[in-house]
């Protein structure tokens, strides 16, 4: 394995669904000789594209999970993370974006910049991923690369400059003109594998010259040397120009645009050249880790293979030989036989097999140095875990995991589904820390919990597709909570002294609201009114009331219980008696403390073209949303609001239909807030109904 990190590219290929991303990846693998035949995504041969390893992806022709694959081009090693193109899988996309150093934004020459490209582009902006654009499908009727470049500028705000122009369009697409070398490139052979370089056709010369001028003009912003050469009217060398464009690309100030058609095998090799020439190598990218010993303050990781290792497990896969963990090493080296520590659990792990992946096939290697992507075998971990050398206390992702806000009951249809379902759930909970599952004691239903409606839907779908577990789902339930609003006294005697062993315990004190935690217990008993050995039983008794609140059986939070008096009986008092007394005391105090219900409020951020701003605000307002602000960003506008989760069901459909499919939204948990009186009554009714149907 080579160790020159200057010649490594970790890239992603991001795009709108159906813009031909998987086909492009397939061609890249073919030209880099990783595969020896081409299978189309929706091909008749039934093999499917090599990157789509999951069943579901093959069937739908979309890519869900990001498989990492590796190939070589012009002595450069390219790791391709195939990112999902569908909007509902953004957790996956964001996780893979962390691992990338650069990206190819694939756009359809007919469809142009579509809503998904906008989302993906925003994510890339967030993680500061430099990108180059590839306008695919130039062979389709209605293809217009110039319009797409204009859209790149107007809709995404990119400083897009053409690096190539197509020779012919639609049916007549023959090749491309390289505006840097000023040469025409044609693609011969059955699969376009032979590049033929010729001079530019006469007819295209004026357009090529004009566009080259523009390119040079844009590039001169990033190189004084180039500006000098231009001013002195000297010949501009290819290297000088490429170097300037590279600088602009890495700082995300320029987006070079390439054209072609992956399906017709045109323009893929020049794109590969561009990946190696324009996108950054791992050491050119600033990677940050969080120092757990220092309040999660960011630390910059030098991409140095000699330093202690820091690596991120960004994807897990269940293979034929057990769990395969994809990792990206940011610093140091992870070698076979070395010992690493999982920063989340603190567990020591010995590295067994180290492999390099190519979709479904693998190749054994000795070590993964800084800047590289590889996979480990037989490592117990969850997706998003950080591995470090012993002695370092860094993590790549924040340890903060939000509590789930929505739950769904699932029931397997048959015995086989039952077994598969538990397998699937075990896997999903490992992959995604925000996804949780448990069995409800009362209804014996399996409950899955997550961060939103779509989040859970995706997992139910994956269960069916990947694991063959057919489940029926109940209605999604919002995780309401109960709390109290005022201080109340309690004084409760638990007494059963009629026949058999007696029980006696008295507990007195008060409960009050607190913002400091979910439950605080304070013991202020003096003079042994309750003997010390029973205090723990009291606490346990109070705690046991929290899981199901007395008001509507939602979990109780934000309660402080103080006990300051009590009584016991020398024979009849027991731990059990005090637990029962505490439960009674809690119910007594709780009823007097004005209990209320709280609901999860989500921070909803909608990105929409400005013309739909009014409509979107209306939608949010109808859903009891409070709009915090609207940010005008040229053609797009970002609206930020707080909306109760209970009102967000079906929002994506409504949003799409009222914005012609162009608005996108993200949603994350913000806080718990008091449910308004009228809504609280509705909730109470629903709870009563559910209870009835469960009984």
């Amino acid at each position: 394995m080579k160790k020159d990190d200057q010649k490594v590219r970790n890239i992603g290929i991001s795009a709108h669904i159906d813009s031909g991303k998987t086909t492009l990846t397939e061609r890249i693998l073919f030209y880099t000789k990783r595969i020896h035949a081409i299978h189309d995504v929706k091909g008749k041969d039934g093999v499917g594209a090599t990157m789509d390893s999951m069943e579901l992806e093959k069937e739908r022709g979309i890519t869900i999970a990001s498989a990492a694959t590796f190939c070589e081009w012009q002595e450069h090693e390219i790791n391709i993370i195939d990112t999902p193109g569908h909007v509902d899988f953004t957790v996956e996309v964001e996780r893979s974006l962390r691992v990338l150093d650069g990206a190819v934004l694939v756009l359809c020459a007919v469809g142009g910049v579509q809503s998904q490209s906008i989302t993906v582009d925003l994510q890339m902006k967030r993680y500061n991923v430099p990108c180059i654009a590839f306008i695919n499908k130039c062979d389709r009727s209605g293809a217009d690369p110039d319009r797409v470049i204009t859209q790149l500028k107007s809709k995404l705000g990119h400083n897009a400059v053409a690096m190539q122009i197509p020779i012919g369009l639609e049916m007549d697409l023959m090749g491309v003109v390289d505006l840097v070398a000023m040469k025409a490139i044609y693609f011969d052979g059955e699969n376009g594998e032979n590049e033929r370089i010729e001079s530019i056709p006469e007819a295209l010369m004026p357009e090529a010259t004009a566009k080259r001028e523009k390119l040079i003009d844009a590039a001169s912003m990033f190189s004084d040397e180039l500006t000098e050469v231009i001013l002195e009217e000297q010949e501009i060398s290819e290297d000088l120009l490429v170097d300037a464009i590279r600088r602009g690309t890495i700082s995300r100030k320029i987006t070079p645009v390439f054209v072609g058609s992956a399906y017709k095998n045109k323009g893929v090799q020049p794109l590969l050249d561009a990946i190696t020439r324009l996108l950054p190598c791992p050491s050119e990218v600033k990677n940050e880790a969080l120092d757990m010993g220092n309040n999660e303050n960011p630390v910059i990781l030098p991409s140095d293979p000699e330093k202690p290792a820091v690596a991120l497990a960004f994807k897990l896969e269940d293979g034929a030989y057990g769990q395969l963990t994809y990792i990206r090493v940011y610093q140091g080296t992870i070698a076979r036989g070395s010992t690493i520590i999982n920063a989340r659990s603190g567990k020591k792990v010995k590295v067994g097999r180290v492999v390099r992946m190519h979709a479904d096939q693998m190749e054994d290697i000795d070590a993964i140095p800084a800047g590289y992507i590889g996979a480990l075998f037989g490592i117990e971990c969850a997706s998003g875990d950080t591995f470090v050398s012993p002695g370092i206390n860094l993590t790549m992702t924040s340890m903060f995991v939000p509590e789930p806000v929505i739950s769904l009951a699932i029931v397997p249809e048959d015995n086989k589904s039952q077994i598969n379902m538990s397998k699937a759930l075990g896997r999903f909970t490992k992959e995604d820390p925000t996804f949780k599952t448990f069995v409800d004691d009362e209804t014996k239903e399996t409950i899955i919990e997550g961060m939103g409606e779509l989040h859970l839907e995706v997992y139910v779908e994956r269960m069916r597709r990947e694991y063959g577990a057919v489940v029926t789902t109940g209605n999604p339930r919002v995780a309401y909570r109960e709390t109290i609003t005022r201080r109340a006294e309690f004084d409760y005697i638990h007494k059963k002294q009629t026949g058999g062993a007696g029980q006696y315990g008295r507990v007195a004190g008060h409960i009050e609201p607190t913002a400091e935690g979910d439950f605080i217990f304070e013991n202020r008993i003096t003079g042994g009114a309750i003997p010390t050995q029973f205090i723990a039983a009291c606490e346990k008794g109070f705690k046991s009331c929290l899981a199901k609140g007395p008001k509507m059986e939602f979990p109780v939070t934000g309660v402080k219980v103080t006990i300051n008096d009590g009584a016991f009986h020398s024979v009849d008092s027991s731990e059990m008696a005090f637990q029962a007394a505490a439960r009674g005391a809690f119910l007594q105090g709780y009823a007097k403390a004005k209990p209320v219900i709280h609901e999860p409020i989500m921070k909803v951020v909608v990105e929409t073209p400005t013309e739909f701003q009014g409509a979107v605000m209306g939608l949010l307002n109808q859903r009891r949303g409070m709009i915090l602000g609207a940010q005008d960003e040229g053609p797009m506008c970002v609206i930020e609001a707080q909306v109760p989760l209970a009102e967000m069901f079906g929002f994506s459909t409504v949003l799409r239909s009222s914005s012609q499919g162009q608005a996108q939204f993200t949603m994350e948990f913000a806080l718990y807030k008091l449910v308004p009186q009228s809504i609280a009554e509705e909730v109470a009714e629903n709870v009563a109904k559910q209870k009835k149907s469960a009984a």
Partner: protein
Amino acid sequence: MSNLRLLRSTGLSQPLSLFKKTTRIINLKDRNFDMLKKDIFLKNPLSLLVHNIDDIVSEGGFGAVLSRAGVGKTAFLVQLALNNMLRSKNVLHISLSDSVDKVGLRYRELFQDLAKQYDIEQTNELWETMLPYRFIMTFKVDGFSVPRLEERLTDITKQGIFHPRMIVIDGLHFDESVRQPLADLKALAVEHSLHVWFSVHTHRHEEHSPNDMPTPLSDVADLFDIALQLQPEGKEIHIKTLKGMPETSDYPALSLDPSTMLIKDKN
């Protein structure tokens, strides 16, 4: 303090008549917050200023706060807005330089400092009850125009989402061409019966014009009912009246505390 002033400061327009029939249900918790808000408002030295401002700046009126960069124009405007929010008046904050998040944070921090000054504990809950009174809009400087603002304003008022009583415009360039947009804004403000506050950036080298107004404002001073200047002197930032405020004895001299940017009574 005169009787009238007392009445006004308690939010009542006429003496409270006991046994007056009322059907309004008061939530105890909300009343608690209402009292807290009133408390902060009354204790706050800015409240006196705000009352004066209410008298001076009429519907459709303009106010300006001037200073050099970094002295505290935004902090002053945010406190003015907070004082309106405390009195349940809707504030639309328009920033031409910062993001929504940043503006939001500014409010949050100043409110927390303000509440801390008066030893108020439930700041989080209190803040939640105040949030509905604020709406932030941000524009890129060159993307801002009065027709555009009007469009946005119609969006939110027509659908009953938000009806501002006061607009804060932070970051507008006061150059030679500012007169027309200001006149348009004035018409807009009259139409929506609200008043508008601006931050005006002044420069050290600029000389005062004959009417004693700093250059950026001198040509358009007639449109403004009130103009205040923040002037750093030593360790203090004085709030000096350029236009509109009567220099009476019951009106305290105010200054800005440079460490917290909170407005305080000089005495």
